[in-house]
């Protein structure tokens, strides 16, 4: 991998919106005049380039649907040999499992952020309790 000479960063932009598609986000990035590289993925896009430019583009993307677009930094740049599936014979790349698990939670988090922004008070609810051992024993016995 070539040595980075300037302060280049990579951001993962995950789109969990009903109104914005990953393609829309990618088109928005293509409109940018900055010298950045993007990679479209199944969950959104990866943006790589000089720090200032990437932060600017990410802010533009976020503003498309603030509470349903999530961003995190990535250590490796898109297509990095040691991470990219293309050079490793397929299979999910390291780190994908975690991302996929969290992506499943994003619609819920997005809705909660909407409610928080709207100033809705937190609804009190009782957390489900763990099953009592005696109850569990009863269930086991009843099946016998």
């Amino acid at each position: 991998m070539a040595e980075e000479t300037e302060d280049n960063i990579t951001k993962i932009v995950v789109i969990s919106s009903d109104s914005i598609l990953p393609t829309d986000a990618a088109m928005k990035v293509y409109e940018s005049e900055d010298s950045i590289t993007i990679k479209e993925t199944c969950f959104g896009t990866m943006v790589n380039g000089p720090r200032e430019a990437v932060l600017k583009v990410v802010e533009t993307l976020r503003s498309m649907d603030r509470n349903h677009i999530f961003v995190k930094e990535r250590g490796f740049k898109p297509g990095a040999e040691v991470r990219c599936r293309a050079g490793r014979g397929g299979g999910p790349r390291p780190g994908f499992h975690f991302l996929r698990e969290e992506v499943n939670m994003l619609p819920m988090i997005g809705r909660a952020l909407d409610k928080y922004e709207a100033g809705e008070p937190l609804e009190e609810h009782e957390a489900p309790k763990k099953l009592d051992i005696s109850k569990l024993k009863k269930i086991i016995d009843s099946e016998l």
Partner: protein
Amino acid sequence: MAKVIIYPTNSLILSDMVERFGHEPLAMMEKIKEIINTVGVDSPPLNITPEGPKHGLKYAAVEVPAGVRGRMSLIGPMIDLAEAGIIVGDSSISFGCMGCARTNELTKFLIREKDIPILEIQYPHTEEEGQDFVYKIAEFLKSLPSGSDEK
């Protein structure tokens, strides 16, 4: 702007929320970037080198497995810098570089040991828990010095 250490240290949700509410997340991704972009003899650049376990001695004893010490050489300096912490438990997704149970225990222990404001919650599974999760994190982040409203 406070430096907030997040656990799991590579979490998308936590990293995004901390940034969203005007603070700086201390996350694994930035550390990895630093390491792979530093000039060294390894090609391709490795995220943990034989130097890692030596640096990790600051955080874990010598008899602790090298894997834990290697990981602590990345996580330890982040804990040193932290001004606040968010620990999210019940994470069945501690895969990849987060997959070492002993490192995770040591990380949580060191964060708790530090005299900083800490929020400990669980990953949400239902809509109500999700709302609770977001509200608690948002209020915690706002309570930190120079915390801002959502940007």
